[in-house]
């Protein structure tokens, strides 16, 4: 009986080896492309988030991974910070663009969100995200329901206060983290 089990298992073994080889080949050819796709996701947004930028490259400062926005002559013009945090329904992933001296927010892009369609997912609307442009980072940004009166106020999405508050919170903490990381690193701008 044992003999027949091994005898019968040869097909499974041969198939496993054949598939293993095929999958290894697939991995070798496709993995570089997939990694590039993932990187391009964020880098594509850099020109839209930092004025004057044409491209960017990933950089690690301490424990923080950010993107350095550069112009055509490869001079640094700003930073793009990937950040995430808990939204209303699930985690929100976004990109915050700031200027070179981390004094001003230059743009916001939502990478991934699962907020309520029609309500919370209006945080992806360009009109709402444009509110963040030009905001000074000296003080934390706040969400208001009515039209904003002070420079640090952002008007929340109607009917989606929690989503708006979450996004603003993520932006605040991302900027703070970058400032702290740059201050820690010797010789970096602060």
């Amino acid at each position, binding site marked *: 009986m044992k003999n027949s089990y091994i005898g019968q298992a040869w097909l499974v073994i041969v198939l496993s080896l054949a*598939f*293993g080889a095929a*999958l*290894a080949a*697939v*991995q070798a050819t496709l*993995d570089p492309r997939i990694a590039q796709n993932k990187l391009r996701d964020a880098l594509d947004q850099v020109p839209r988030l930092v004025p004057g930028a044409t491209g960017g490259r990933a950089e690690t400062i301490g424990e923080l991974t950010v993107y350095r926005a550069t112009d055509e002559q490869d001079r640094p013009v700003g930073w793009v910070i990937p950040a*995430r945090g*808990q*939204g*209303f*329904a699930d*985690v929100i992933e976004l990109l915050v663009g700031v200027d070179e001296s981390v004094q001003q927010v230059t743009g916001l892009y939502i990478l991934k969100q699962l907020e*309520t369609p029609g*309500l919370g997912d209006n945080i992806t609307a360009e009109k709402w995200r444009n509110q963040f442009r030009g905001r000074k980072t000296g003080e934390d940004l706040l969400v208001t329901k009515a039209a904003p009166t002070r420079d640090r106020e952002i008007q929340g999405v109607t*009917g*989606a*206060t*929690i989503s708006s508050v979450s996004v603003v919170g993520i932006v605040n903490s991302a900027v703070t983290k970058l400032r702290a990381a740059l201050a820690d690193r010797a010789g970096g701008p602060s």
Partner: protein
Amino acid sequence: MNYVVSLVTMAVTTALINNMVFHFFVGNCPFIGVSRRLDTAFGMGAAVTFVTTIAALLSWLLTYFVMAPGAPLATGLWRLLTRDPAAAADLSILSYIVYIFVIAWAVQLVEMYIRKFFPPLYKAFGVYLPLITTNCVILFVCLEIMKHIGTGATDPWDLGKALTYAFFAGFGFLIAIVIMAGIREELDHCDVPKPLQGPGITLIIAGILSLAFMGLTGVDGNLAKLLSAKSSHPAAPASAPAAERSK
């Protein structure tokens, strides 16, 4: 303490809010097929929970130590073989194959257990017991765990979190299938239009149940806040997150 809070939040989220059947659409085939009677539905739910937890345990161990990018055993072995101390090993392409075999093995295990200790249940299940292998819930849980292990993971899960996730995912499936069985037993006395009998009316009711469960969105985030507030400042009054919701 924070760890326990995160486990409790994850349990509530997975079982109720991101319910496997009503939110993620997995586990629909047995949900529609086995939900006619309450006792078989409960047995199926329990079996799925059991299988999911065992499969998740094995998957986590295999993924963490062998298959994830940068896994210790695989990387160590690869470095030995190639004599390159900086070589990286990434066996994640074999993940799907390994998971489905782990699941099949776990189902075999549970099948033997049920046949030995609960023979009438074994007879009642019939062909549906080996079909648990094709239950999307289990593979979905394994895939979710895979996302949270390894060097590319943004929010790494240790074994405790993975097992909590798996157990309560199965538990959520149990809740869903038991509710549906209860409703369908009542439906036997109702006058369902002929075209809708069977899967049609089951799906429509599942839709209404899904709508009901959607009302629980946001409970997890606020539950976490509530529990953290209570654990760090036991004297502080609990906030009223419900008032914040202007939806």
